[in-house]
């Protein structure tokens, strides 16, 4: 039985050459900038974290969970990577996972690899990372507010990827925007909930074991053992 190797990843043929080329350029520019950021800010203690995250995101993307109506979704990990590594280095990790999936596992197209790197990784990582930084500036410094923000940005990262994919499909002339956008938004609003649950669980685990490894915010202040700030995370 023939089954399409799609798995949220865009297959070859869905996007026009022009759209694919533009997204390759966008992906390369983002990765190049990410490498510069890593060169300045990726400290030695974070090296193993990058390996663990690449492994975890790859594993998570194999775990399709059912959402409504005979449809499934899987974890993307862009927001998780952004919270733990910062938005720019997260772009590199997600790009590496997506590239290996395309090359070694035939998951996702090659001409559209730039698009997948942007839609499933970079866009979500950058948006989640910068939203998180902005939100934490105004929110109370509590564990609850931190994890709540993680949930919201994880959901948002999935949504922005879905919206971007819908726009690119429409610009490519594959399907009208009015048809594809509501459908993509509807399905991914549900998949985003799964993304939020997994991301919060993973961030909670890091918060409990190595809060110093979390790049965004000031999580050590309210991690276990830190002076209680709002009655949470005191022990």
């Amino acid at each position, binding site marked *: 039985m023939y089954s399409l190797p799609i798995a949220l990843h865009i297959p070859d043929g869905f996007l026009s050459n022009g759209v694919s080329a533009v997204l390759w350029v966008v992906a390369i520019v983002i990765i190049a900038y990410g490498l510069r950021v890593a060169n300045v800010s990726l400290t030695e203690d974070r090296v193993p974290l990058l390996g663990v995250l690449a492994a975890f995101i790859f594993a998570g993307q194999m775990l399709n969970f059912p959402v409504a109506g005979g449809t499934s979704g899987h974890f993307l990990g862009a927001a998780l990577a952004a919270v733990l590594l910062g938005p720019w280095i997260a772009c590199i990790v997600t790009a590496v996972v997506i590239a290996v999936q395309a090359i070694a596992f035939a998951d996702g197209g090659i001409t559209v690899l730039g698009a997948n790197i942007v839609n499933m990784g970079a866009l979500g990582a950058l948006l989640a990372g910068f939203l998180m930084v902005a939100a934490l500036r105004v929110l109370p410094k509590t564990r609850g507010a931190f994890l709540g923000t993680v949930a919201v940005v994880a959901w948002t990262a999935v949504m922005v990827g879905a919206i971007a994919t819908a726009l690119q499909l429409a610009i490519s002339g594959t399907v009208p925007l009015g048809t594809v956008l509501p459908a993509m938004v509807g399905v991914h609003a549900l998949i985003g909930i799964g993304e939020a649950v997994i991301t919060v669980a993973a961030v909670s685990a890091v918060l409990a074991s190595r809060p110093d490894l979390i790049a965004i915010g000031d999580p050590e202040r309210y991690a*276990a053992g830190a002076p209680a700030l709002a009655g949470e995370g005191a022990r």
Partner: protein
Amino acid sequence: MSRVPLKLFTIVGLAVAVGLATAVSPFAASTPDGLERVAEDKAFVEAAKDTPLHESSPIPDYAFPGIDDERVATGVAGFVGTLFMFGLGYGLALLIRRRDGGGGATTA
């Protein structure tokens, strides 16, 4: 509460990832996912082409070649793939990290 040593954090994190990919992924949902469902419902799924790398990729479609049992093939693909991703991520991080003149000593 004291911090978990980095080595332990790494081993446990990797073990969780490998365990999920090996033991849970064979039982993951096989229904069409988000984009696939939309492509079927909105009738543009036939625009999809197989990737040109489909023949040459070592583990196409997350099924380790030469294993008849679909679930075992997926589990083995998950095991191998996750370990490979860890090595690649770790190695890449060593290459692109900040250099403080400390040389290329390994961490953890």
